[in-house]
């Protein structure tokens, strides 16, 4: 399964990111979005999976701002 993931960041203007992953993100994971380190706060299905693709939406909160 390929996980197409839409990331958004709460609490700060952030453009968000879309990327394909081999494994689904989980709550508590830390992820680097551009220059910023974020923590996954919520993972939901954005739309139902289809064939080899799952479509996830991830809400993150900022752990460390870009320098």
């Amino acid at each position, binding site marked *: 399964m390929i996980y197409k993931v839409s990331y958004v960041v709460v609490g700060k203007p952030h*453009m968000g990111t879309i990327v*394909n992953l081999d494994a689904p993100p989980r709550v508590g994971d830390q992820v680097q979005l551009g220059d910023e380190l974020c923590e996954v706060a919520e993972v939901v299905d954005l739309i139902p999976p289809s064939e080899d693709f799952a479509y996830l939406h991830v809400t993150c909160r900022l752990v460390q701002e870009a320098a």
Partner: protein
Amino acid sequence: MSITELLQRCELFARLTPEQIERIAALGQGVVYNAGEVVIREGEPSDEMYVIRSGMVEVLVSRGVIPDVPGPPQLTPLVSLGQGQFFGEMALVDRGARSATVRCVRDGTVLYVIPRQAFWALCDSDHHIGYIVMRNIASDLSFKLRHRNIQVKLAGGEP
């Protein structure tokens, strides 16, 4: 990762057979970009679509451009895209000018570039490929729109 493997992992080509993907892989070529390089510029004519083989790009739109005022437009970032994502697909559908600027974020970002004309010729010769790809483009545009809707909600309605 080979071009064929890249395209097999790209949603745009989901549900195509390995043979069909090989035919698409033969159409394009890989190009390397460095951080800060502009791949496509808003308002310019469009002739290619891009699949991100490695690295990251950011999609930006100009805001508040005032005609006859010199200087570059102010660019607002919309989203960043990583491996397996694609952009420039709207050109395949509507042949319009680029709707956004796309700039590389990381050095050594590798993009696989597919020329529109060659791709359309392939779709014309094999309607199954054309049907599947157009359905996948619609699905991806829907995904990006949903992502954007959430962004707008988080921003309190400010696009």
